[in-house]
């Protein structure tokens, strides 16, 4: 490659010298915490209030690391003559993070928005049993869940937004039809607004 013996070595040393003058890019982790993106799959948090014990997450989990126990409770009828209702009550919701593969299928299949990803990652222990986290710990992690990042400008609108917009338009139309029959002009919602 080169005529002068050792020219390649010198070139390499020049790189090292140049790098020496630059600031280091490493972070001193325990002192400096990493800035993780909102989508980071650190830990799964449970928004317990939203859980209806439908068991979809436990069933869809590829390695069955979600444990759910529940019982049924009878809610007495509110009006006389109506039937009593039963309702599922969550007794136990635990995720074994020693088994979890962090695929996020449970978060994705949850139809009631009870599971969320949090970038929190500092829960390593030296005891494998301690990696099974119960619902109270999972609920605590809920406070660390960040808002989802805004999407690219060319992205399709999230279906929640599209639905809200459709509903608003529908309401506005109804309002318009009702107006001739003596309704106040300033209706309940700004129709067609940024839902």
């Amino acid at each position, binding site marked *: *490659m*080169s005529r002068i*013996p*050792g*020219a*390649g*070595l010198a*070139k*390499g040393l*020049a*790189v*090292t010298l140049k*790098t020496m003058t630059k600031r280091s*890019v490493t972070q001193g982790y325990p002192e400096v915490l990493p800035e*993780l*993106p909102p*989508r*980071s*799959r650190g830990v799964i948090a449970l928004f317990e209030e939203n859980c209806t014990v439908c068991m979809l997450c436990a069933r*869809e989990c*590829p390695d069955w690391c979600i444990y759910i126990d529940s019982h049924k409770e009878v809610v007495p009828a509110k009006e006389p003559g109506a039937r009593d209702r039963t309702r599922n009550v969550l007794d136990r919701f635990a995720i074994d993070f020693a088994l979890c*593969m*962090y*695929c*996020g*299928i449970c978060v*994705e299949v949850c139809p009631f928005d009870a599971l969320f*990803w949090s970038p929190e990652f500092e829960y390593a222990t030296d005891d494998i049993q301690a990696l099974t986290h119960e619902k109270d710990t999972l609920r605590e992690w809920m406070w660390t869940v960040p808002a989802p*990042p*805004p*999407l*690219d*400008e*060319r*992205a*399709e609108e999230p279906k929640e937004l599209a639905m809200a917009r459709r509903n608003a338009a529908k309401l506005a139309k109804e309002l318009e039809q009702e107006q001739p029959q003596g309704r106040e002009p300033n209706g309940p919602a700004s129709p067609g607004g940024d839902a």
Partner: protein
Amino acid sequence: MTEATVGVGIGADQLDTTDMVLNIGPQHPSTHGVLRLRLVLDGERIITAEPIIGYMHRGAEKLFEVRDYRQILVLANRHDWLSAFANELGVVLAVERMLGMEVPERAVWARTLLAELNRVLSHLMFLGSYPLELGAITPIFHAFRDREEIQAVMEEISGGRMHFMFNRVGGLKEDLPAGWLGRARAAVAGVRGRVPVLRDLVHGNEIFRARTKGVGVLSRETVHAYGVSGPIARASGVDFDLRRDEPYLAYGELTDVLRVVTREEGDCLARFSCLIDQVEVSLDLADACLDRLETLPPGPINLRLPKVLKAPEGHTYAWTENPLGVNGYYLVSRGEKTPWRLKLRSASFNNVQVLSELLPGTLVADMVAILGSMFFVVGDIDK
């Protein structure tokens, strides 16, 4: 094995040296994982070499048969843990083909982009670890610094650092975050600017060249005989790249950017320089994808799937050009929500078998240089 007894007044026939069996691994630093090599040595020279595999066998193919197509992705992305995105890709391509599914254009381009970024990640790992195995410590820090930059954009989009789990049948899991294209472009530019560092540091280094040039020459015939693929095959002059020869994703439209890197020598140095050049090609491809993504009309990035996804009865073979070589999935479905059989053809399995041809006749000291230049991931061998 003959047993020699050395005593007083030994005859000439007793002076023969005996062959020694040397086990490399399963826990050897140069095998990054649990590959075991059983070498028979005559002094310093290797007579026979046998790669003994299976220490990391996880029965992935059998596990695929009891998982639905979304769950398969979780398992499929981790046999070669350095190219998770490319692994997922083969599965979704196979299922989409079976279903006759048309993937949205934005998803196709985003997949191509992510596949190329994943290739850069994987290549940089080997560009850093190979010199490390030969005793050069510095390059791996440079390689990891570059990796980290791409890793950050991959993490931002997918939420994972290794097992991205970002492909879905019919597209991608989520759309790109706002401003991500710009950050990806900056990362690509940053890494491109520092590729010359690796060249100066490693490729031109006399010691490195002395240890790799002319060492472990792999002939074209052996490549064909063993089904070796990827950069290793191309370093032996086999001009075969699925991205060009059987275009999938958007590669068909990238023919002017895609340059298939080949070398004629077939030695360790050729394999290494193939890898460096491929990084540059991948960065060019990534830039082309970014250009395209910025001009595509707004649209969805995935398709709505039925609750229970069933591939129709039939079979298909989807192969992709993974960073380490040809990765294929043979999917046989009987119309259930799980595949009846999903055969996995992984690149490293074939690439490592060739060691039994390559190592005999070389010295033990060259063994590490040859082994490291085969660029394998043990999980990809054992599946």
